[in-house]
Each structure stands twice: as structure tokens, then as C-alpha cells.
């Protein structure tokens, strides 16, 4: 039974899409969905009716997700959804399929259940990994409460009896973008793993679970962080793969999204992340793994400062604020974006690694939640898109691959095993 929530008293009628979210509707295709998934595994079989009630209870706390996509003359915008909640669906084999505006009760996120798993798939125009994790944890907490467990508020579990604060709903890009500097936007065409494409709407997902303390110890041997170490390992794998292919050697480009909430004090539940591009040019000479780790870590550390991030953020918001961009009708913007993304999408990215970081839950809740995982949106021509999330001492790292190859995944997890990290694998492959 759904509970009337005081938070439902305060609901914004409509939102502009945030600065990062504006690019996604123009590239919502069968091959590039921009939908990512967060999953929680709990200690009991999920009851879909109770899950539905939990969604109804928490949705007023997340007005920025309780929306539907609408078309304006110049931009898309998000309007309060008139439906109660999205359908609660039994899980499917091919996660992260595209979300069409008129389907799914017009909601831009989907909810799936299977055995003891609760999964939420978000259209990236709504939020990033942080917002999605907050939503999932609050949903699981409310589900467990409805099952009779005492779950307090705290960490990533939001208080559903309080209304959403204005800073949770803000477009933090616009708020913090204030730099006068121009960032270096030079980008080059990079190496891509090739293979036979899977049919539209399908992708192979491989998730590996390993100990955070083990990987931390490994990274500390090289004096780098976990993110730097994993990014370097992925770059190293692609570097050696390309060498074996006996072609003209192209640059390896790693895209590393960064959560801006750490550098700029914002609690927004909407998109607030940017990405760094770390390049490795094989034509410079032969690299050892240590050199690749150092190269990746140093470049990341050079970029990872509020001044640099602000400059990148400002350059993006400038495009949105430009009077000519604003005055171009939406259908023209869509056409331009569609052509741009179909021709040059992922030209600069060989591999993506998005680390959501360590998620903390209230202590009373930890005993019921066995694991958390995140599946990144699949790309058009990228066989190595990865995302990781940490919970307790377990890090889960998922690969989304649109090709029928498994080389990068196999090499990545085998390398971890060879470095004495215990890895457990699960996948949607047959």
C-alpha cells in the first residue's frame, strides 16, 4: 500500500535539461541508447507489487526523475509525469535498450526485478551514476522497510519524508561554470577494437566482482589510485592488442568521467560530471606497463583540479548559452546532432572507464544488501565501455560490448587474476 508522502507537496512542474543532458536526446537511437543500469542484489526474492509500492513512495522525493520528455520549439524539456509510476518489469537479457519517450508510462527510467535483484535503468539525460545510485539505494531501503525491516536514513539513502532541496534539482553546470580560460579541446581519432556487431538493441555484459582491498594494494605498489590503475590496465590491454593487429598504430584514448560534486560543492541529483581524455601514442615508442600506469596517473592528476574542470564546464555551457545555438529550432538541432554523432561519435575514445566510487549504506541496511553493480551505456563502435562501483569491500566492474568479441574483457580479468586478485564473473552471454 503506497503511503502519502509529504514530499509530494512540493513538486516542480518542469525542468530544463541540464547542460550535459542536452546532448542525449539528439542521439537516442537503436544502436546508441545512452541508458545505463544500476543493480542491487538483496538477500530475499523481490516481490514486484511491494517494489511498485516502494517506487510510488519514493518518487515524490525525486521530482527530477518523476518527469517525462517533452519537445519545445528550441529545446527538449522535462515535465512532471502524470502517471503514478513506471511499470515494474521482469528482467530481460539485453539491458540498457533505448527508452522511447512515449513508452514505459513516459518515464525516463525503467525498473526491473529478477529473483533477488532490483535494477533501475536511467536515461542519461536525467542523471549520472551518483543520482542513479541515490535513487536505487533509497528505493531498496524503502522496499526493505515495507518488508518490515528498520532502515534508517543516511549515506546514500535519502529521507523520503523531506521534500527535495533546491540544490538537488539545480543544473550545477550553469551554477558553477565561471572560468574565463579556454581549455585545450584538441582531439584526435583513436584506435577502436573491431568485431562483428551484435543485432540492434543487444549487447554483451560481463561483470567482474573483486576485493577493493586487494586492488588497492595492487594500485599502491605503483603509487596510484584504483581509478588510475584500472584505467592504465585498460589502456595497456588495448595498446598490446593494437600492436598484435599489425596495422598503422593509432593513439589509444581513454575516457574517464569525473564526478564534479567532489570539486564543486553540489548535491544535485541531476547530471554533474565531465570526462577527461587520456591519450597514449604508440608511435612514441615501446611502453612498459609501469610507464603506462605513470603516464595515465600523471595526466589524470594534471587534469583533476577545479580550475581545469571549471574551464571545461564553462566551455560546454558557453555553447548552450550562445544565442545562435538557442535560436536554432529543435528539429534542426536534432538533425545536426544526429549526423554529428553518427559520423564522429566515439572517434576520440578507445575505452571508457567510469568509477562511481564507494557507496555507503546505513549499517542496519548492509546485512540485507549483498552487492551493487553498474552497467555503462553501450557505445556505437566501442568494445570496451566499463563502469565500476564499490560497496563494502567488493568492487564490481562491468563491461558493455556491442561486438561479439570478448578479448578485452578476458584479458582484463585474467590480468587481475595473474596479479593475485580473486575475480568472480557473471555475464548475460549464452
Amino acid at each position: 500500500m503506497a503511503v502519502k508522502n509529504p514530499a509530494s507537496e512540493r513538486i516542480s512542474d518542469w525542468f530544463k535539461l541540464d547542460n550535459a543532458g542536452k546532448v542525449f536526446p539528439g542521439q537516442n537511437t537503436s544502436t546508441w541508447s545512452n541508458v545505463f543500469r544500476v543493480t542491487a542484489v538483496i538477500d530475499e526474492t523481490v516481490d514486484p507489487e511491494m517494489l511498485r509500492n516502494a517506487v510510488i513512495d519514493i518518487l515524490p522525493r525525486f521530482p527530477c526523475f518523476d518527469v517525462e520528455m517533452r519537445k519545445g520549439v528550441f529545446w527538449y524539456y522535462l515535465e512532471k509525469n502524470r502517471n503514478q509510476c513506471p511499470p515494474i518489469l521482469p528482467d530481460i537479457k539485453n539491458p540498457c535498450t533505448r527508452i522511447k519517450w512515449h513508452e514505459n508510462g513516459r518515464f525516463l527510467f525503467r525498473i526491473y526485478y529478477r529473483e533477488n535483484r532490483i535494477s533501475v535503468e536511467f536515461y542519461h539525460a536525467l542523471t549520472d551514476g551518483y543520482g542513479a545510485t541515490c535513487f536505487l539505494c533509497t528505493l531498496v531501503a524503502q522496499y526493505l522497510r515495507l518488508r518490515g525491516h528498520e532502515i534508517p536514513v543516511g549515506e546514500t539513502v535519502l529521507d523520503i519524508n523531506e521534500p527535495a532541496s533546491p540544490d538537488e534539482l539545480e543544473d550545477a553546470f550553469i551554477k558553477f561554470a565561471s572560468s574565463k580560460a579556454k581549455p585545450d579541446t584538441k582531439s584526435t581519432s583513436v584506435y577502436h577494437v573491431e568485431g562483428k556487431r551484435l543485432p540492434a538493441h543487444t549487447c554483451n555484459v560481463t561483470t567482474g566482482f573483486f576485493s577493493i582491498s586487494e586492488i588497492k594494494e595492487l594500485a599502491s605498489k605503483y603509487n596510484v589510485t584504483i581509478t588510475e590503475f584500472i584505467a592504465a590496465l585498460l589502456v595497456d590491454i588495448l595498446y598490446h592488442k593494437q600492436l598484435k593487429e599489425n596495422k598503422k598504430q593509432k593513439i589509444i584514448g581513454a575516457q574517464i568521467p569525473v564526478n564534479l560534486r567532489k570539486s564543486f560543492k553540489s548535491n544535485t541529483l541531476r547530471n554533474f560530471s565531465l570526462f577527461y581524455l587520456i591519450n597514449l601514442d604508440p608511435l612514441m615508442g615501446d611502453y612498459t606497463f609501469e610507464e603506462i600506469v605513470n603516464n595515465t596517473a600523471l595526466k589524470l592528476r594534471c587534469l583533476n583540479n577545479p580550475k581545469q574542470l571549471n574551464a571545461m564546464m564553462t566551455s560546454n555551457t558557453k555553447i548552450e548559452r550562445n544565442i545562435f545555438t538557442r535560436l536554432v529550432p529543435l528539429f534542426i538541432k536534432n538533425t545536426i546532432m544526429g549526423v554529428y554523432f553518427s559520423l564522429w561519435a566515439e572517434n576520440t575514445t578507445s575505452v571508457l572507464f567510469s568509477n562511481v566510487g564507494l557507496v555507503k549504506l546505513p549499517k542496519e541496511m548492509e546485512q540485507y544488501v549483498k552487492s551493487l553493480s553498474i552497467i555503462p551505456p553501450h557505445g556505437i563502435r566501442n568494445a570496451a565501455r566499463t563502469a565500476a562501483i564499490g560497496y563494502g569491500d567488493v568492487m564490481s566492474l562491468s563491461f558493455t560490448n556491442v561486438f561479439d568479441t570478448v578479448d578485452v574483457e578476458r584479458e582484463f580479468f585474467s590480468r587481475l587474476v595473474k596479479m593475485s586478485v580473486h575475480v568472480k564473473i557473471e555475464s548475460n552471454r549464452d
Partner: protein
Amino acid sequence: MSYCVNCGVELDESAKKCALCYAPVLNPFEKESENIAPTPYSDNVFIPSSASRRYLAFIFSVILLIPNIVCSITNLIFPESGLWAIYINATSLLVFILFIFPFMFKKVNPYLLLALDTISVTLFIYAIYTMYEGKNWFLLLAMPMVISLGIIIACFLTWIRRKERDWPYIVIAVLSAFSIYSFFTEALFHFYYNTDRVFEYSIIILVSSISLIAFFLFIAKNKKFRQWLAKRFFV
């Protein structure tokens, strides 16, 4: 708890083979009925509806239909100007069958589509023939040319669909088909105009094709040369 003997990773309880190297999971102490752990993903594949393709095909059909209706009515009102609306109707029908009709279905049998295309092109030419009759050019020239082209394309389709073909062999097949077709059309022309000449332009096509076929055959057979080409002509 199973581990992959090849990769060393621990596998999901439900796994029948390793997701990374496809090595089968064999536990001699486990009976088959014991492995009933639920798989992490459902077997149900969800493919979102692709109504937009059909919707667009419908819109284009309507757009095509409107000028046809207008032209046909105008032609009926003013019949003294000749039956010019037939051209527009026939052309529109051909455009519809060639470019719009395939998008109205999720999956169409390619042979059926080819047969339909061949028939519609033949009928289109027949519509023109009814206006410009003379020397029986439809039966002796146009129809055999279109039907033979349809047969050659059908043979090519059968060949390419049987198994995955290497690209040099595909080029060789296209060149061979082109040479055969040029011989056939030239023979038809000689027969139609009742000339005593032997093959001319088809010999030129054949000689060029043979030299190109030899080159592509060399590429197909010689791996080292292929790698060298890939390296030198990398775009």
C-alpha cells in the same frame, strides 16, 4: 563454486561455461540436476518496437499517392492531351516497390523482394513500350535483359548467403557476374539488330575483368601481400 580452468576466474553458480573463454564448466562430483542456481540475467530478450520505420514508409506512401491521384483525375478530365498520367503512375509504383515497400516489414525475404522488383521493373518498361511500340523491343530486348539481371542477382545472393565470404572473393564474384551479363546483353543486341558482328565491348570488359580477377585472387590467396596492402593503404 566453479573456477575457469583457463582464465582462473570464479564463475557464477549457474554458469555452464566461462563467459570469458567459453571453456565448459565440468564438475565430476555434481549431478546435472544439482545445478539449478538462477542465472543472473533472464533469457527473455526485449527488442523495442520499431514502428517509426513503418510509420515513415506510410507517410512517404501517402506523399507519393497524392500527386498520382491529382494527375490521374486531371488526365481523365482532359483526355485529349494523351495518357501522360500513366508515366507518373508507373514511375510512382516503381519507386514505391523499390524504395518504400521493403520498409513496411520488419524482415522481408530477399528473393521475394528481388522477384517483385524484377516484375515491377519489367512492367514499368512495358508501360513505356505501350507508348513507344516498334520492332517488338520489349519482348526481344528489355524483358530478357531485366529477367537475366534478376537471375544473376539471385545467384549472387544465394552464393553470398551460404557462408561468410572474404571480400576479395565478393569482388571477384561481382566482376564475373558483370562480364557474363555484358556478354549476354551484347548477344541480345546483335540478335535484335540482326548484325553479323562478333562480340566487341564485352570482350573489352572480359579482358579487364580477368586481369582484375587475377589481382584480387592473388590478394585472397596471399596473406602477406594482404597485410602489406592493409598497412600501406591504411586510411
